[in-house]
């Protein structure tokens, strides 16, 4: 059995970790490239959202490398994501690939059922043993997310461009052989020390920009043109609204992010009072929260034709009018070019700076008068 899965941010570290613990061979897809996109666009449905196409590309490339068992997440709607797996299965079978697809549905009824879905990887393990392993894996993922969060904080102050990213690579390596919770904790400690050693310019007062939107585009740097690094290396503090383990975790408590789903939905109430699937309501809620915390602007990322995010976007004019926060919506599909995104981001940053200057000037004016 050679297990593969779609790529999304740091998910590769999590699943390869699980496979190593269970002694199963993992064949991760090659990093997303233009070839992946081309394959996805060729075989994926025309106006399906981009993540579906990319993940189809991932699977095809992984099967070319010998993978025969595909792991994919399920869901209960109304976002299209919940039906991805079924459609992918049909398309790949139609192309003549031979494989087994394991669809992991979210834990609806009981933990036993949820864990049972991983039994195929370790038939000899008891449910309890498997649960312990999954928990340990999850803990590692959560810790990695915490490191990532720290990276975003540090990068905005770095003196030498690129130093934080280098340190982050070292951090990831520290985690490679950390399996028990004490090993993971010490890897975390070492990582934080590494990041603290990055030379910082503490006198800076960076622009604060929040990133909201559809989780796949937010989490996958290839698809979002590594927007976090782009902004971070320009001395902008980036705050992300979703972390991988928060998204996987069923509790809705979002320990890494520090804001529960409930709080976010409550913040969205005046503008979008009902759940609309995916992160639609969360996008609106996070923007309101960012305003409360004094952020300078928000960047909204989502794949073209994404239903929940399109609804959120329809409501932005009202939010901007009421709360005065600039929002840049970046719709991403297979045609999106880096140069276009960079131009828009640069213009947006300029706007945020001039807005800040204006605010300062008006403050000085009111003091002097």
């Amino acid at each position, binding site marked *: 059995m050679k297990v593969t899965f779609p790529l999304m941010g740091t998910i590769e570290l999590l699943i390869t970790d699980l496979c190593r613990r269970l002694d199963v061979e993992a064949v991760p897809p090659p990093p997303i490239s233009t070839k992946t996109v081309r394959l996805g666009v060729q075989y994926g449905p025309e*106006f399906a*959202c981009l993540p579906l196409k990319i993940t189809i590309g991932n699977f095809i490339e992984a099967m070319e490398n010998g993978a025969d068992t595909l792991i994919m997440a399920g869901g209960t709607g109304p976002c299209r994501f919940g*039906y991805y797996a079924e459609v992918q299965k049909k398309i790949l079978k139609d192309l003549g690939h031979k494989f087994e697809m394991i669809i992991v549905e979210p834990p609806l009824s009981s933990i036993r059922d949820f864990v049972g879905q991983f039994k195929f990887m370790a038939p000899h393990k008891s449910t309890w043993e498997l649960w312990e392993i999954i928990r340990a894996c999850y803990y590692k993922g959560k810790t990695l997310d915490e490191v990532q969060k720290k990276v975003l904080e540090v990068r905005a102050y770095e003196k030498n461009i690129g130093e934080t990213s280098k340190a982050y690579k070292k951090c990831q390596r520290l985690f490679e052989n950390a399996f028990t919770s004490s090993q993971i904790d010490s890897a975390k400690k070492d990582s934080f020390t590494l990041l603290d050693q990055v030379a910082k310019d503490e006198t800076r007062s960076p622009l604060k920009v929040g990133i909201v939107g559809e989780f796949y585009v937010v989490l996958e740097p290839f698809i979002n043109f590594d927007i976090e690094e782009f902004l971070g290396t320009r001395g902008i503090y980036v705050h992300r609204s979703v972390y991988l383990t928060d998204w996987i975790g069923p509790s809705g408590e979002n320990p890494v992010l520090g804001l529960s789903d409930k709080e976010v939905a409550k913040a969205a109430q005046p503008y979008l009072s*009902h759940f*609309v699937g995916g992160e*639609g309501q969360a996008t609106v809620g996070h923007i309101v929260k960012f305003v409360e915390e004094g952020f300078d602007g928000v960047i909204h990322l989502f794949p073209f034709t994404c*239903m929940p995010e399109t609804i959120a976007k329809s409501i932005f004019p009202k939010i901007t009018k009421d709360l005065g926060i600039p929002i840049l919506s970046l719709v991403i599909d297979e045609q999106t070019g880096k140069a276009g995104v960079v131009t828009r981001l640069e213009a947006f940053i300029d706007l945020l700076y001039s807005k800040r200057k204006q605010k300062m000037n008006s403050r000085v004016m009111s003091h002097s008068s």
Partner: protein
Amino acid sequence: MRIGIPRALLYYKYFPLWSTFLTELGQDVVLSDVTNRDTIKCGVEQADNDVCVPVKVFYGHVLEFKNKVDAILIPRVVSTEEKTYTCPKFMGLPDMIEALEQDMPPVISPSFNLRLGFREYYGAFRELSRKFSDSSFKFLKAYSRAHQALNKHHHQLLKGFVSYEQVSSGSQAQKFEASDYKIGVLGHPYNIYDPFISMNLIERLKRKGIKVVTNEMVSPKVVRREEASLPKTLFWSYEKEIIGTAFNWLRTRKVDGIIYVLSFACGPDSLIQVLIEQEGKMNEDIPIMSLVIDEHSAETGLVTRLEAFIDMLTRRKKASLN
């Protein structure tokens, strides 16, 4: 009170229900005009660029009510049965309209969510009726009359009427004979019945003497049975109807060909299109034409494709008779 109901989206599914309910409670129901060039122009200007064409049309209909009515009814239809949802856009519609930067009449948006059970659904109607009258008697009467009207409407569709408008305009139901040449028009009612979005597709077919069947003429029981063959049940109720119908037509060969109308950027349709076309591959004697439409679709393009499709069907039919 004059209450406006936009002639778009779920109007095509629930108008008899909503209008009877409001009328019974003594309100004046005002319908917007049939979709026309101005509707779409207004809608495209005001709606977000990325929404699908029926939602843009909906915006156009809503804007028509500016300064004309006392309130607009835009129910939030979250779910129509257990374990399913409608499209996310129906769940966010009232909020999207309220975010319009226009001085619009207030929006009345009861939430209909059958996922939470019948009690919740009933309660939503009760709450809606309280806006107009406190009498439980009036409410009960309105509630039952409204549902009677909806049932009657469904009944008539099954009998061969195409759309609510046809029923109300007093035209005759289609009578089907075994030898008839039939085309199944598949798609969301708000696309296939809207004369502007569908570019009069159904009328065009009828003018050529072709009998038209739509997904609303297939009984829910059949839909449920056919849809059960999917490995994972769909969680969108309206798409269940479409896919169940498609499977039924393909498997029982009830129609000579299928025209599948879908709007560009439609989320659910983008996925079920794959499932329908794959089922189509297994039943190659029923041709399927997928017609993707948006606000830029041109009539000539449609006419050409339609003629080619019909020519092909005619040739096939002749060949099979020989």
